[in-house]
């Protein structure tokens, strides 16, 4: 294998894939990136066996071929190179030579044959969406994914493609975020699956406001092909992931149907007041109290060992006095993820779930804290 690639292109390719490589891996080959050169394209592939990411970039290929090299070392070298063009050559002993200007490096790699093959798909279902849609929906839901490994079905985003609708749901059992969007799904491509959080985090990083994403899914795996504005160009990224096996809980049943009060709030103002009040919470006392009175909302926090906070917001509220306590993080997370100027808080009483909505297809349900 022998090729010339620009520093920018090789950095782009490595940055897209290297995140998936685990720092503590038992198999040496999994620390390596697969380099595959053919025609005018150099493709990078990295995997941890659960998630695989490929990214192709433009390159002048003098001699096609494939090999693998330790990805972090390769990245560290090329990142520091001062020149714009880099010559890469791999010999039959998998030694990779990097030449650029006055720099010369040789790193030992492993045969491409040792690299795990890409999972094959049969009888797949598929749907094509804009990257912006998928990115937006994942941003609005992914913060609610559970990190509790004992509830592994919740360690990801549930995606449903049914009834002309794409729905994404994430919950950790205390709060639940849901976003949906109308899409055309043919009957044969309807289905539901759970994408693991690691993949979601990679997608959150890789998805752009432009271009399309082609989603393929089968029984236990799915793929996301991210294409640029011109599909067919060489800069596509492919993410292939195992899916979480198991049944997602019946999330519909926890969405309250009738709320008593609905209060419109300026998102930024609400968010900043919560962030400030959160400073006065502690591990022992990790709640903020929202007290709604006539045309005002008071946000209070106090910790015996730290001190107290009180924020007063003018709101349009005519209902009876109502106070409810939340873990501030569970209110701040969705407000951070949203972009709308106005949000709506809907409540029933101090021990029933609270709901956060926007003018749009988004819903957030959060359980309060019972204060002792």
């Amino acid at each position: 294998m022998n090729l010339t690639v620009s520093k920018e292109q090789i950095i782009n390719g490595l940055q897209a894939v290297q995140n998936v490589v685990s720092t503590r891996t038992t198999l040496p080959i999994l620390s390596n990136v697969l380099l595959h050169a053919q025609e005018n394209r150099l493709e990078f592939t990295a995997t941890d066996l659960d998630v695989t990411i490929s990214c192709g970039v433009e390159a002048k290929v003098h001699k096609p071929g494939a090999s693998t090299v330790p990805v972090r070392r390769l990245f560290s070298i090329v990142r520091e190179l001062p020149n714009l063009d880099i010559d890469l050559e791999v010999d039959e002993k998998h030694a990779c030579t990097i030449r650029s200007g006055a720099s010369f490096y040789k790193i030992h790699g492993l045969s491409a044959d040792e690299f795990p093959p890409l999972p094959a798909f049969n009888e797949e279902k598929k749907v094509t969406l804009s990257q912006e849609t998928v990115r937006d929906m994942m941003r609005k839901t992914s913060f609610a994914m559970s990190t509790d490994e004992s509830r592994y079905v919740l360690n990801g985003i549930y995606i449903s493609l049914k009834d002309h609708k794409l729905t994404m749901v994430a919950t950790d059992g205390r709060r639940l975020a849901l976003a949906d969007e109308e899409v055309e799904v043919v009957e044969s491509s309807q289905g539901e699956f759970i994408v693991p959080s690691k993949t979601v985090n990679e997608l959150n990083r890789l998805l752009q406001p432009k271009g399309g994403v082609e989603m393929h899914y089968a029984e236990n795996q799915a793929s996301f092909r991210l294409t640029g504005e011109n599909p067919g160009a060489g800069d596509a990224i492919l993410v292939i992931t195992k899916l979480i096996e198991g049944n997602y809980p019946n999330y519909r049943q926890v969405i309250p149907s009738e709320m008593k009060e609905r209060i419109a709030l300026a998102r930024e103002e609400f968010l900043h007041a919560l962030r400030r009040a959160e400073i006065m919470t502690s591990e022992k006392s990790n709640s903020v109290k929202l007290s709604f009175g006539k045309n005002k909302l008071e946000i209070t926090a106090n910790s015996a060992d730290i001190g107290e906070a009180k924020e007063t917001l003018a709101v349009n509220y005519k209902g009876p006095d109502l106070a409810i306590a939340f873990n501030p993080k569970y209110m701040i997370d969705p407000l951070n993820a949203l972009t709308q100027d106005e949000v709506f808080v809907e409540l029933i009483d101090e021990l029933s779930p609270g709901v956060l909505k926007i003018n749009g297809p988004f819903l957030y349900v959060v359980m309060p804290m019972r204060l002792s």
Partner: protein
Amino acid sequence: MSVTPQLTSRPAHPFWHRLRLESVMGTPLRPEGIVSCSMLMFRVIFHLDMDAFYASVEQRDNPALRGRPVIVGTPPTQRGVVCAASYEARKFGVRSAMPSATADDYRKPDGLTLVPEKEKVQFLRPLPVRALYGVGRVTESILNREGLQTVGDLQDFPGDLRALVGSFGPTLKEFAFGHDDRPLESGDEIKSISGEETFLKDTDDRQVLRACLRQQAEDISARLKHRRLGAHTVQVKVRYGDFITLTRQISVEDPLTEAREIYRLGCFLLGREKLVSRPLRLLGLGVASLREPSGRQLFLL
């Protein structure tokens, strides 16, 4: 009466300056029994050892049992752990599984020993080296091999103990002379809550194990709620027929109080670590990292 053995944390080694009151059940501790310490230069440690406690309780409640061998534990037809044995029973070799006072065998029972500060060095002399804090089986055998059998031998040892026990040497010498300035842990702050069960027959029957865990989770939950505590760590313990014992634990963000959650995490640990790969002799469940939460997060799912 069947009593679940409870592990109580022991005070730091209370070897000297101690007043031992045993079998206090019949003799309530009177306020005048407490010595004023205000004039003392040295600290005074009272150590109350409720030895043969449950057996003594039974003997107090039932006079017919007094002076007779009494074992509190599992019915004799079944397998189990001896919770407490009266002194009469101990003559027959019955030992308690309670780790309450194994090193404090001085003048048992009803021993009341007062070791004044100036006599502590003499008091310690005849005791075996093992009696000192930090001297376990390994250190004991090293010392014995050098002819050091008693604390007195340690006191008289002219050489540097570091040659024998490494960095513990100087501390060991201090301990041998009764110098110990470690703070006394009174052990009244609860650090963990646990329960365990020894099965009549080794079992890997999932239903039996689940029922056992569920019961333990409920007991733990009740005790957590009683003390208004939430737990951030759950631990399971298994012992197989060959006495190989394993423990595994998981930590969680939200304080646990509910039996359902403690049970679920217990099951999860057993499953994740494949601990029920063969029949269990014992199964235990416990919680730790206890905190007093100001509020309780409610759950949707």
